[in-house]
């Protein structure tokens, strides 16, 4: 069942879900949100796309394989625990840097954000692997 309306909607909605998921991911440190939910949202866009077209095309749209998303996510999460070691703190200690932005105050970046990015990518990848596999059965 291929419907042109759904296909059009899916290809328009996909970028929106990605942007939204990034927003939700970023606000997650102090507000509801975070890497897990962000990853779910990012995956949902592609799942909708795969339902409208096919898993092959969704795969093509994603460009990288979901497996590399998982590998990248796990690597980033693991690396985020290490900067604390150079500062002499126990492993996993949160480290922050503040960047002064010209137009809107300061941007705080830190290893917890990096860890959350790892979660985001891993959840995204795992969900896609599971769903794509089930859809292909």
């Amino acid at each position, binding site marked *: 069942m291929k419907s042109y309306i759904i296909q059009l909607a899916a290809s328009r909605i996909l970028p929106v879900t990605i942007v939204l998921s990034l927003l939700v991911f970023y606000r997650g440190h102090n507000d509801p949100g975070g890497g897990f939910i962000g990853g779910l949202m990012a995956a949902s866009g592609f799942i909708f796309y795969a339902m409208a077209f096919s898993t092959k095309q969704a795969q093509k749209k994603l460009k990288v394989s979901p497996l590399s998303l998982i590998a990248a996510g796990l690597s980033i999460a693991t690396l985020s625990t290490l900067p604390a070691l150079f500062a002499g703190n*126990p492993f996993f200690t949160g480290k922050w840097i503040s960047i002064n932005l010209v137009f809107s105050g300061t941007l705080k970046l830190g290893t917890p954000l990096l860890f959350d990015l790892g979660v985001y990518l891993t959840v995204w990848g795992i969900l896609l692997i599971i769903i794509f596999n089930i859809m292909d059965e």
Partner: protein
Amino acid sequence: MILPALPILIPLISLILLLITFNRRQWQPWIGLGGALLQLAAAVYLLVLVKNEGILVLHSGNWQAPFGITLVIDAFSAFMLVLAGIIVVSISLYSIDAVDRQRQSYFYFPMVQGLLMGVNGAFITGDIFNLYVWFEVMLTASFVLITLGGEKKQLSGAVKYVSLNLVSSLFFLAGIGLLYGKTGTLNMADLALKLSMAENNILMNSSAVLFFVAFSIKAAVFPFFFWLPASYHTPPIAITALFAGLLTKVGVYSMIRIYTLFFVQDKLFWHPLFLWIGGFTMVVGVLTAASQYDMRKILSFHIISQIGYMIMGLGIFTVAGIAGAIFYMAHNIIAKTNTFLVAGLINRVTGSYDLKAIGGLYKIRPWLAILFIIPAFGLAGIPPLSGFFGKLILISAGFSAGEYVISFVALAVGLFTLFSMVKIWNEAFWKPRPEGIPAFSGEKEKLPFTKVLPVAILGLLTLTMGFAVKPILDFAMEAAAQLIDPSAYIHAVLGTENLIHQ
């Protein structure tokens, strides 16, 4: 400070590397093996460090206990880490040939690393909820491993395995919830301190029972063992051997940890219960094994029987008893894994696990007979192999604690174990080849080196443990003394200044 986290980080990093090199199948076994070797080296280093400098504590994220997640490595944990390392190294080596290409290219090696990460995490965490999380990591990896390949028989075994383990996780989680509600803390050392000062400790028994059921299911203790023989013989033998060596022992480890650290108030109820349960586990396991003819099933039932010995050591609850349990666990992890691996070799030669369909192996493969006899008679407790000393320590601890009944039961069960091992020996090696089978499927082929080497190494370890009982037992005694008197553990985790406040 990162050292205490290495047992978690090394498998995680190997897992990531395995995912990155996913498309190069021929690299996978070697990366897996390299990761396992590295983690074994780290574990040995940590063991030496713990022996020289005492308990290692890492407050991850710089959140001090009892607020953050604490990683604690005491003598018992370090000992278990080394054992896990040895098993995973042997299994990684053995799997190169024993696990087919199909499975190898579908996340077999990453999942072994994931399993190792969960097992190691469970050994070193000092936080009860974190222990639950590591159990889940371990179980998730084991769910994948047990269903990998998707044969019909495998799936029917996996359904039992998965559902029973999920039930057990539910009990565990409920127990944690209740305990947290009553004490307001999840840190194990803090729990020990709070519970030792609480007034109505009897209220803790509701959590203690839930924990007991949860760990009993994981450790396959009577009367919760039935999932184990129903599922363990279904996956390829390398996976079975890995599970047999590590998974049930994590249940036993957690039981020993928790019932020595903080559920110690109601001794009059728990310790006799452990002795009863241990006795029943031994007897039921060994008797049901006697009626089986599939090698994997015989060995699976023996896992259960031998868990009983460890529970017995916990029930005796003296330093010697716990040390006996630890020593026995070390012996059992190595010898049990090895018997499964040898069963795999026998299967490679004969093409069958069924004792009725094989025979006369001694004539064509005398070396295989020797490789079998070391772990098998080690399990049965023939001197000078490791099992003899394990049983000797436990039984003498039982006698000196005045627990005569369980000690006699343990002696009798040893005889029945011998009976089962002799049965495999007779049927597979001694009796003439069954009629109608001119040649076994793998009779002409040479056994691959990667399969024989781990068996030989583990056999050598069983022998070494028999000849070097003293240093190992001394270390087990040290670990047991730390467990029986947890004040050193509590001090190491909470620090002295915190203790004064409370």
